């Protein structure tokens, strides 16, 4: 009721009538105008909106809260933004008065909330703003099973003795689930006064309650609970027994925290003694941690004792905890300990001493570098560097001399951790004196440390006898070389024969060239070498250039693609195809269109596709670029990479493009695998992947696959996409689950009593099982028996089904229990299938014959919204939005809901791929008014006042403007003209619907040309597959193309905003900008449809709905003019 009052209060002044408004309506209108500005764009704006609400007083807050509705009952996002905004606003520092005021108002609204979810929302806000004074009002919700949880959460955040008292007081009376919440929450409060209330529950026979009680007692940590917690019940479930030590330790920890150290320690030691076995040593570790936290330095003996453990987990814990007892004295005790334990433990202690960072351990760690045990030595190396830094370098030199396989990398890491000026002088003398593996490590260190002064040594080693040393040296050269080294490196590359060597040298050359800091001259040194070089050298350099990149190198490579030497040419083409920068794309396209070599064509195409894919261009631009390659002449098979490239552009257009190649034998496989890649996942913003175009294309892909495993994968992808699009399977491929036998017609059924119905249904199900069955995954009918019905009723829906008949076969689909969408043998019935056979007033035959020959599968897509039905047969629209007449009761319209039936009509039938998507019926949301932002309604929701033109074909119905094309054709225009404006509206389409929004239009002529038409079109429909982008929904028709794929599924409401400001037009559909263009730029040099659009020059005109013979609905049409 309130909502209605609001809408009138707003709508009346806007339509120019003065109406006396009551104070109540005034407040509601004021609140509406504020709420409508939520969500605020900035925190400051939010704060000012919230301040406005608070200024209006308590009633205003209540009014805001009253706009919060249960989930599914409408769009209350703005109200929730407002309530939460208030909660945030009033808790800013220094606003205690406002906070208390809002908390009180919130609690009052909570008291009025009849829905649990609305109450939960208010409670979650009390959780944010409540303080002590909110405790009492929250008490009454603690006994409620649904509300106790959020209420207790609010009390927990409020905290304090009052909150605890409230929780305690509620325990006895609360029902079981609420009591569980209360006990758990009392545990979280950690307040002692709750203990006596919880203790008896620790012996409860209810597992959940008992476990909550035990946790609460442990977490509070009162000695009263000691006996209960120390004896885990043998009869308890395993999980409870397994958790007993952790709970007991929690209890012990709380005791220590509250100063009862002795009691806590006693409990911890009990666990430490009893849980030592490897699989439960985490409890011993936790106990040890508690001992350390209680005793501090006095826990050292416990830690040292733990280091004796053979369990590495437990020992590891002890060594981690060792850091809690700092000081050199403790360090020396650990050193002493290390001498007494097994090598593994000793290594662990050495590592710990390193982490500890106490130099007192350095002598011991240094000594450990020479240990006879490898694990100890390995631990000692990083530890020594940490403790002694560069001072231990001489020790490491010694270690290097005798280093084993495992020590070399550890030593290398340690040396890299020192500065170059210390390390390089240390290792250079060792280079010639070390065994090859050590030498390899050392030369790599030279490289990584940038020791350019030593490059001659590195060159020498790069030509040495040992392969590992050579490889390491080449890697080092990559770090050290600069432009000046290029001639030498290129000469080495020319001579190199081993693959590894070639790879490393190329990398070294590229690194050297890239090291030039000036992007202008980068690569010049290589290009100098390229000039007048012998062919072998040219090839070698060309192969490196793509790793350098740059403008001049690119030009050099392009020039060499015209070399008369075939080897040089091939190397240049290869280089171009691997070019790192997008600047090469045009060259590659040119190469592809001029070359006569098929190999070069393929390389060029691959390179081009790669560069296009990597560019930052929007999807549509990438597709344009890829289309250019598709247009080139040449072997079809060479275009496979292009199809793969298209599949990586996630645009609806890609689906469409790829689908075209499913009929091309040489590209079918590439198209199919591209389509499957594209469809193998779907992001939320890609509804087009679960639309019917995708469905139809993917089914074709599936059918084209020979491999059964690939077909199964394709089938699964189709299923996933359908599911994401809201389709549910009607048939599981295994059973008749979800189906029933037919019991009479809807009229007769309505008269049957429940017991009669049940009996009849049982009998019908029996008959069903005799004649309908699942054979090879197909729903199969043996030709005798009765029709098959869905177990439940459907209202508005989209239905997909494949069917097959034999010669002379006959069947049909009953919608809402009523005949029928016809299926029959097209040879005997030349009209074909799909018609609404039983219609007497409206058309009963399909508009064309789209059947496949008898014995092949046919696919129906049937959309039923309200009383109208649209049928696609094999992707051809054969019935267009026709009223299905009521066969059973001719004087009535079709029933609002009913079963879907597969008609038995003699002769066997086969069905498969049955899916249904239910279309939610229109649920009116709160009225859209943007008074504060200057929007005014263009349509008052009741009649067509302010509109002119075809007022017969357009009607005001239930707050919507509905197009009835069967009544009259023509356009509906505003009586007024508008120049610059923002127009907002919502619209709902029927399958393949076509309409348009005329703007700046005169009242005569074709508005698409004499004014402008912003296209309105269900452009996902299969009948529009070959549309041009300038015809997509949202396009400025014929002038500015739009992006497709943003419309919601047919039958759902879409939102649109059209902004025309001077020469600029933007169109936003469902929050996505699909058009953002300057009319001058778009029409410079002629429009894309090559038509004359004089209307583009107009500066103002009427706004109109341009009818194109389809049913479409509009609502919430509103406008803001710019003056």
């Amino acid at each position: 009721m309130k909502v209605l009052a609001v809408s009138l209060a707003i709508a009346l002044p806007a339509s120019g009538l003065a109406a006396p408004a009551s104070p109540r309506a005034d407040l509601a209108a004021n609140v509406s105008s504020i709420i409508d500005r939520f969500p605020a764009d900035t925190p400051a704006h939010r704060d000012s909106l919230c301040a406005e609400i608070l200024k209006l007083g308590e009633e205003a807050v209540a009014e805001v809260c009253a706009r919060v509705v249960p989930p599914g009952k409408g769009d209350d996002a703005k109200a929730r933004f407002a309530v939460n905004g208030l909660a945030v606003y009033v808790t800013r520092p220094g606003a205690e008065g406002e906070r208390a005021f809002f908390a009180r108002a919130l609690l009052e609204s909570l008291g009025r909330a009849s829905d649990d979810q609305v109450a939960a929302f208010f409670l979650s806000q009390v959780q944010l703003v409540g303080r002590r004074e909110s405790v009492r009002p929250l008490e009454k919700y603690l006994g409620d099973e649904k509300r106790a949880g959020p209420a207790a959460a609010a009390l927990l955040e409020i905290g304090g003795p009052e909150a605890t008292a409230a929780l305690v007081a509620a325990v006895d009376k609360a029902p079981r689930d609420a009591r569980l919440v209360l006990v758990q929450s009392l545990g979280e409060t950690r307040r002692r006064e709750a203990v006596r209330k919880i203790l008896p529950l620790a012996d409860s026979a209810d597992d959940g309650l008992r476990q909550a009680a035990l946790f609460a007692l442990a977490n509070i940590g009162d000695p009263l609970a000691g006996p209960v917690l120390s004896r885990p019940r043998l009869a308890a479930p395993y999980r409870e027994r397994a958790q007993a030590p952790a709970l007991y330790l929690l209890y012990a920890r709380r005791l220590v925290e509250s100063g009862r150290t002795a009691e806590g320690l006693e409990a911890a030691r009990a666990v430490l003694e009893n849980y030592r076995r490897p699989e439960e040593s985490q409890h011993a570790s936790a106990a040890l941690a508690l001992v350390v936290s209680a005793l501090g330095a006095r826990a050292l003996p416990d830690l040292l004792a733990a280091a004796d453990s053979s369990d590495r987990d437990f020992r590891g814990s002890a060594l981690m905890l060792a850091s809690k007892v700092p000081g050199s004295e403790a360090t020396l005790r650990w050193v002493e300990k290390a001498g007494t334990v097994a090598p593994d433990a000793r290594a662990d202690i050495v590592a710990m001493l390193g982490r500890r960072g106490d130099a007192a351990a350095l002598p011991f760690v240094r000594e450990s570098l020479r240990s006879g045990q490898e694990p100890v030595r390995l631990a000692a190396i990083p530890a020594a560097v940490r403790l002694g830094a560069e001072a231990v370098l001489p020790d490491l030199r010694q270690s290097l001399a005798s280093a084993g396989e495992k020590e070399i990398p550890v030593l290398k890491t340690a040396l890299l951790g020192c500065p170059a000026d210390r390390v390089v002088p240390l290792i250079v003398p060792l280079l010639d004196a070390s065994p090859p593996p050590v030498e390899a490590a050392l030369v790599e260190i030279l490289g990584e440390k940038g020791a350019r002064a030593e490059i001659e040594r590195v060159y020498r080693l790069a030509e040495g006898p040992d392969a590992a040393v050579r490889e390491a040296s080449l890697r080092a050269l990559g770090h050290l070389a600069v432009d000046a080294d290029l001639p030498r490196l290129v000469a080495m590359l020319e001579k190199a024969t081993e693959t590894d060597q070639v790879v490393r040298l190329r990398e070294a050359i590229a690194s050297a060239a890239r090291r030039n800091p000036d992007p202008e001259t980068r690569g010049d040194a290589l290009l100098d070498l390229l000039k007048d070089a012998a062919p072998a050298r040219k090839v070698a350099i060309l192969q490196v250039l793509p790793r350098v990149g740059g403008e001049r190198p690119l030009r050099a490579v392009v020039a060499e693609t015209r070399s008369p030497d075939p080897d040089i040419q091939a190397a240049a083409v290869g280089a171009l195809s691997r070019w790192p920068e997008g600047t090469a794309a045009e060259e590659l396209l040119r190469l592809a269109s001029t070359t006569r070599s098929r190999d070069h064509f393929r390389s060029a195409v691959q390179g081009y596709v790669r560069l296009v894919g990597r560019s930052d261009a929007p999807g549509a631009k990438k597709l344009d670029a890829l289309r250019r390659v598709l247009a080139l002449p040449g072997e079809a098979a060479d275009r496979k990479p292009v199809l793969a490239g298209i599949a990586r552009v996630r645009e609806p257009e890609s689906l469409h493009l790829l689908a075209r190649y499913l009929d091309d034998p040489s590209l079918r496989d590439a198209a199919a695998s591209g389509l499957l890649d594209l469809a193998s996942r779907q992001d939320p913003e890609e509804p087009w992947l679960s639309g019917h175009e995708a469905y139809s294309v993917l089914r074709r892909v599936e059918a084209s696959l020979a491999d059964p495993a690939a077909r199964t994968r394709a089938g699964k992808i189709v299923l996933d996409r359908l599911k994401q699009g809201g389709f549910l399977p009607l048939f599981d491929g295994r059973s008749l689950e979800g189906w029933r036998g037919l019991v009479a017609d809807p009229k007769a059924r309505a008269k049957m009593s429940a017991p009669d119905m049940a009996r009849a249904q049982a009998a019908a199900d029996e008959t069903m099982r005799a004649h309908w069955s699942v054979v090879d995954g197909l729903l199969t009918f043996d030709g005798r028996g009765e029709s098959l019905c869905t177990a439940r009723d459907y209202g508005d829906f989209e239905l997909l089904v494949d069917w097959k008949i034999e010669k002379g076969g006959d069947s049909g689909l009953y919608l809402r229990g009523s005949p029928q969408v016809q299926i029959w043998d097209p040879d005997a019935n030349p009209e074909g299938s799909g018609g609404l056979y039983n219609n007497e007033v409206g058309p009963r035959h399909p508009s064309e014959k789209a059947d496949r020959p008898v014995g092949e599968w046919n696919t129906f897509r049937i959309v039923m919204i309200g009383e109208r039905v649209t049928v696609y047969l094999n992707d051809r629209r054969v019935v267009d939005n026709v009223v299905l007449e009521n066969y059973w009761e001719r004087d009535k319209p079709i029933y609002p809901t009913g079963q879907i039936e597969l008609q038995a009509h003699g002769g066997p039938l086969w069905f498969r791929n049955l899916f249904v998507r239910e279309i939610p019926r229109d649920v009116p949301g709160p009225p859209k008014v943007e008074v504060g932002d200057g929007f005014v309604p263009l349509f008052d929701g009741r009649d067509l006042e302010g509109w002119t033109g075809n007022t017969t074909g357009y009607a005001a119905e239930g707050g919507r403007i509905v197009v009835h094309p069967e009544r009259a054709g023509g356009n509906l225009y505003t009586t007024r003209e508008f120049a610059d404006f923002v127009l907002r509206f919502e619209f709902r389409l029927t399958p393949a619907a076509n309409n348009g929004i005329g703007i700046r239009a005169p009242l005569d002529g074709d508005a698409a040309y004499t004014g402008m038409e912003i296209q309105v079109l269900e452009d996902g429909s299969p009948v529009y597959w070959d549309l041009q982008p300038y015809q997509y929904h949202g396009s400025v028709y014929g002038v500015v193309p739009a992006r497709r794929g943003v419309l919601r599924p047919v039958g759902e409401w879409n939102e649109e905003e059209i902004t025309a400001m001077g020469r600029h037009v933007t169109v936003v559909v469902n929050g996505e900008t699909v058009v953002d263009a300057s009319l001058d730029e778009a029409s410079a040099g002629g429009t894309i449809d090559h038509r004359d659009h004089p209307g583009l020059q107009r500066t103002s005109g009427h706004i109109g709905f341009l009818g194109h013979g389809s049913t479409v609905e509009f609502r919430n049409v509103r406008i803001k003019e710019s003056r």
Partner: protein
Amino acid sequence: MKERPTSHSPRISRRQFARGAAAAAGSLMILPRRVLGGPGTTPPSDTLTKAVVGVGGMGRSHLAYGGSVLRAVCDVDRGHLASALEACGPGVTGYHDFREVLERPDIDVVHIATPPHWHALVTVAAAEAGKDVWCEKPMTRTIGEGRAVVAAIERTGRVLRVNTWFRFEERFYGLGTDVKPVKKAVAGGLLGWPIKATVSASTGFDWKFFWTGRTSLPPEPVPPELDYDFWLGPAPFKPYHPHRVHGTFRGYWDYDGGGLGDMGMHYLDPVQYVLGKDDTSPVEVWADGPQQHPDACGTWRRIEMRYADGCTIVLDGEDRDKDAPFLEGPEGKIFRGFRSDIPHFEEKVASLPDPEPQVTDFAESVRTRRRFALNERNGHRSCTLVNLGKVAVQLGRPLRFDPVEQRFVGDEEANRLVDQPMRAPWRLSA
């Protein structure tokens, strides 16, 4: 009221479901040795064994992570569970309830790839059951849960790895360079101090702003394969809608925190590492953006955080400054691709000492009981950056933070977002 018919998706209560699942798994369940009795346990073999909890999106990648043998998978969606079991072949048991997985003594490591609202609960339970943990990012959904995880891991002496790797992996994210030389340059003082780090598309980190939630979701029937009540677990009960779960859960505060919540650790952890802030947190945080819905995460424009020593991190969601360096100090800048305005930058960096070596092999970390490169401590600190950002975005007012107490200073409501009560019977012992 229009009730949507549900005969196609009979709702199974959690209790019924659990009973059914337990009965089905009963014959296969391996009881802990303590229950069976008998001689001592077998010594740990060299091969680690793992279980993956949550095998929907990210969880599928965890099945294949190396270094251990998969023994068990767990999911509250029967569809996910079945397809994971199909993918991983024989020798792997499926579970509905992660607590049954934790009862298996033959599992060493538990991988957690559930939505973030479960991370802390499963991690703490795993630690208390003696398991080591490999947890998806973000480590935890709130700062309070992060503290509980740190405490539980350290108390029980377990090893934890958070699944982001850009502090040690080569070519981290979009920066286009190894992290090691960046760390060397900063630690070696080439940029001077303090440093401002900018995380934006131009510096290589594009915030995933399309991961937002939807408002006013109408309730829908719960699909029969999903145990929705278990999926929600500690989160407040809200009626089912497919957008809340599976993949799109990222858009809701109850389970995650949008692009910032879900991707933030990837972007911010290397920054924290490079700045050497692994043991502290910022003292100020400030956010600019549109108002946030209490349920659905939205976008933001800019978040700034400042450490006590003046280092700042800027999260630039709009990519306003296309020329911004990734790191900027008084003496020099580092841009995307390791470009710098410092002369002879590369040579200078090369000659500096390498950073402290990190343990980057998780299996090694488990065997040697040494902290993994990204562990509970530094992982909690970098997840705190994410969670600080989330709170600042939700409240839209400047906040001060105490990095020692890990509480906001002088803002009680902000602290209520640090610790958020869980829905019974789920609880976390801090």
